[in-house]
């Protein structure tokens, strides 16, 4: 239920908003693929990130850190498990989102053409990177730091240009935006909606950036895990949870 309840609420809310906005523009501009499509893609990224962090938080909430990290499980296997869990949960969310958006609001993903796959791929990779950074923060700062993690997508969204072009940002925000892979996806999506060409090289650059961030996030997690083992943080979190 939690996998698709909020997804449905989001799609219905933004679907109704886009319908209302369409009454002002008539047939000159269709907000459905631009606005609802953007919401849907951003939701996808958020679900991917939460897929990683939720699986980790389950261990935090269940005070299961010590049990898990004292098993023969390798840290690479643990992270792979979190990512696999995210693939499954975000796929369920995506299917529900797409079904509701198509059936209720007439969103056609075919409008994105052959770029739909790369769009989802870049967002997926960046969502994974964000998720791994999120769990790294909690591993380093402790279970109470969970509250830093939930707002991460909201903090990034103004820079990711989900609803407006990068050119509309002040220069310093534009510079940050160019470092964020999702901004390439949403620029591409808007270009398609406006009938302009999408530059594959830019999208490829966004994909390369996302891959780089996944690699850096994994490195960071491994380093922080080593630190946690060196300083006894994992054992301490279990003891703190009980006390």
């Amino acid at each position, binding site marked *: 239920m939690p996998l698709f309840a909020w997804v449905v609420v989001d799609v219905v809310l933004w679907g109704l908003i886009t319908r209302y906005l369409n009454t002002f523009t008539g047939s000159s501009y269709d907000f459905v693929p631009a606005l609802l499509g953007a919401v849907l893609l951003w939701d996808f990224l958020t679900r991917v990130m939460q897929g990683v962090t939720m699986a980790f938080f*389950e*261990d935090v909430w*269940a*005070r*299961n850190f*010590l*049990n*898990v*990290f*004292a*098993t*023969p*499980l*390798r840290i690479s296997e643990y992270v792979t498990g979190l990512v696999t869990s995210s693939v499954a949960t975000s796929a369920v969310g995506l299917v529900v989102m797409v079904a509701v958006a198509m059936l209720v609001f007439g969103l056609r993903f075919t409008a994105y053409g052959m770029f739909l796959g790369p769009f989802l791929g870049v967002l997926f990779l960046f969502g994974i990177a964000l998720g791994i950074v999120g769990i790294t923060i909690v591993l380093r700062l402790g279970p109470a730091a969970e509250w830093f993690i939930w707002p991460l997508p909201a903090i990034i969204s103004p820079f990711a240009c989900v609803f407006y072009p990068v050119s509309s940002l002040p220069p310093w925000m534009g510079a940050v935006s160019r470092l964020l892979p999702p901004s390439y996806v949403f620029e591409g999506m808007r270009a398609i909606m406006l009938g302009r060409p999408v530059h594959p090289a830019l999208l490829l650059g966004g994909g390369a950036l996302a891959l780089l961030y996944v690699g850096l996030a994994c490195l960071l997690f491994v380093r922080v895990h080593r630190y946690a*083992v*060196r*300083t*006894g943080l*994992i*054992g301490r979190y*279990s*003891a703190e*949870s*009980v006390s």
Partner: protein
Amino acid sequence: MDGVSFEVRQGEMLGLLGPNGAGKTTTINMVLGVLTPDAGAITIGALDLAARRSEALELTNFAAVYAPLPGNLTVEQNLRVFGLLYGVAALARRIDELLAAFDLERFRRTRCGVLSSGEQTRVGLAKAMLNQPRLLLLDEPTASLDPATARDVRARIREIAARDGTGVLWTSHNMVEVAEVCDRVLFLSKGRILLAGDPRRLPGEHGRANLEELFISVAREPLALRDGGG
């Protein structure tokens, strides 16, 4: 910890005793690979824990009151998850054996979160036995059990350890239990091993009536004992 060095022999029950803050749980965390010692080495079987962590941890398991199993999973689900993590062969049969051994059959499909603390302790012990570890770490394993259940559990652990040749590192504040169960004890104080020996002979060797008296002396006058005083 400072200069702590010991061995748990095959089939031996080694008690790790000491007042709060002595370093018992720290020692256990080191052996579990969740805390790296500044110096020295930990070997499990013939495997160096630092160099071959995953293989070494396949030979261990543990139960501790501060590490309950996830309450949103049933007893059987928890045992299955951890059985998979420890790579237990013929897992379904092993789970059946342990549910019977720890009198948990009727809780098979009950979520761990709704079990009493004593029942959760038994589930934790069943999880600790899943992979038939060569080294079993038990941090106050009977702390939440009533005396009758605690006696049964002690007997069960002794029986399993003797049958499988499992070395057991056992911490407890119940000195009667320690005297009953352990073949040898180490007294820790402020991160150091203060005394070591047979729990039935050690009090007499230090002029104390019983293990509890000796424990209180370790907690209150560690320097006197370390310097060889009675």
